[in-house]
């Protein structure tokens, strides 16, 4: 019986029931403040948060997106989440900045800086290198989660 439960638990974990994991071909992990009211976001939802098209979590609290400065990570996130090039993203933000409508997310120089900010800031969400030590933050799965 115990062996069956262990096997079931293992299968459940592999099927996504445990802490969400990112796809193997993604060089980044999405991390959020431990109290963030999500464990998984769809690619569209994630894109909307980082493009500041959604600025509130489902519970009404403010989303505080933060991005790394590493060009490789930025490029991968732009392509895989926003389906845009970095140049297109700069053009997107230029239009919002100079019309006085919105500012781009904060930027942090290193994974450690970003993780430290996310750990300490309620509502924060960011992404770091896939191999970063994510202790103290919530790793958010990127999948096909229902709308919050």
């Amino acid at each position: 019986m115990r062996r069956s439960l262990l096997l079931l638990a293992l299968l459940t974990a592999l099927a996504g029931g445990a802490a969400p994991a990112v796809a193997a071909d993604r060089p980044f992990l999405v991390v959020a403040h431990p109290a963030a009211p999500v464990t998984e976001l769809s690619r569209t939802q994630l894109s909307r948060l980082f493009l500041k098209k959604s600025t509130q979590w489902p519970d009404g609290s403010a989303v505080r997106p933060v991005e790394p400065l590493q060009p490789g990570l930025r490029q991968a996130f732009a392509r895989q989440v926003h389906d845009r090039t970095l140049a297109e993203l700069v053009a997107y933000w230029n239009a919002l900045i100079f019309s006085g409508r919105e500012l781009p997310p904060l930027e942090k120089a290193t994974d450690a800086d970003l993780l430290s900010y996310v750990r300490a800031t309620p509502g924060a969400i960011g992404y770091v290198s896939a191999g970063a030590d994510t202790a103290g933050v919530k790793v958010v799965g990127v999948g096909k989660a229902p709308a919050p």
Partner: protein
Amino acid sequence: MRRLALLAATLLAATLLAAPIARAVDINEGQLAIHGDGAWSLQKISNKNSLFDATPEGNYNTATFNLLLTARPTTELALNAYLEFEPRHVGLEWLFVEWRVSDRLRIRAGRVKQPIGNSGELVYAGTTRPFYDLAASIYGPANIAATSYLGVGATGAFSSDEGWTLGYDLYAGALRLSELETYRYLEVPAHAGDFTEQVTEDRQQVREIVGGRLSLTSPFELTLRLSGYGGRLQKDDDTRKITFLVGGFSLQYRVSRLLLDGELFLSDEVGVERSLGTSLTASWFFDEHWQVAARVEGYQSKVATIPFGSPLLRHREGALALNYWFSPTLVVKVSVHRVIGNHFAFPGDATYQTLVTTPPAEQTNKLLAGVQFSF
């Protein structure tokens, strides 16, 4: 002149070196952000006419620099100020406070960018478009779009998971419009005034305005916008109050390499003058650096007391541009323009009377070479 050229060259060199790595300044985790944009160009005309900054001898004195300051004392509150530095002018272009209730409702008050058309809020930032300037037939002194309104407004957006976004803007207050009444001498005696004055832009205030814009963006990046406003217009040199209405629609399709942008606006000073402004722009990136663009635009004014065919009432322009983008925040632009009509193109020293008694060349060619940057 030599000092000016030196200043321009220094500005150009500085931007070429600095802009690719230029970043906004963020202070205290984004509580204060500083952005900026700038431009310099040489603009030359083929005949004796002038066309805004373009002159027959070639105008080098066109450098501009703008600073955008955004303070975010709390997540709900934003304070925005845009400072403009030009060769003969330093000013505060807009200054407003925004209270964010939610994504669907943001309340704004102060001197706010007028949300009109595709580009009404982006008149200055040249790195947001393929041509150095926006189409004068809509965003110039055409009695259609102002740079800002003074009053209160609301803005917000509704989005679906399928990628559709419906944005809205509503506002009320007053605004100042610019126009060129190059035809004024033809109105004699309907229009009182000194016709030996040099032709200059008139400023007129539209009060008690109510306006709005609806923007629908599809998942495939096609945006349709409907904008308009109405109010009571009073010219600086006149005590009459005239009902004034503006309305139009805009389309924009922006994907990675391609931009298509089309707009049509009508303005009506009821019983006095009607104007139509339209523009169509297409641009294409060959790679991440080289871009070509083409634009046609037209402006036609109809004044009850003036023959419709007068070239002083119309502006037609076709333009081609070749741009080199060092980065998305630094671009060198070269464009050629052919203009037909004298509503905007006329000799710099013309008076209202000489425009009629000594008609200027109706066809004007312009060459522009310039650099624009932002950070």
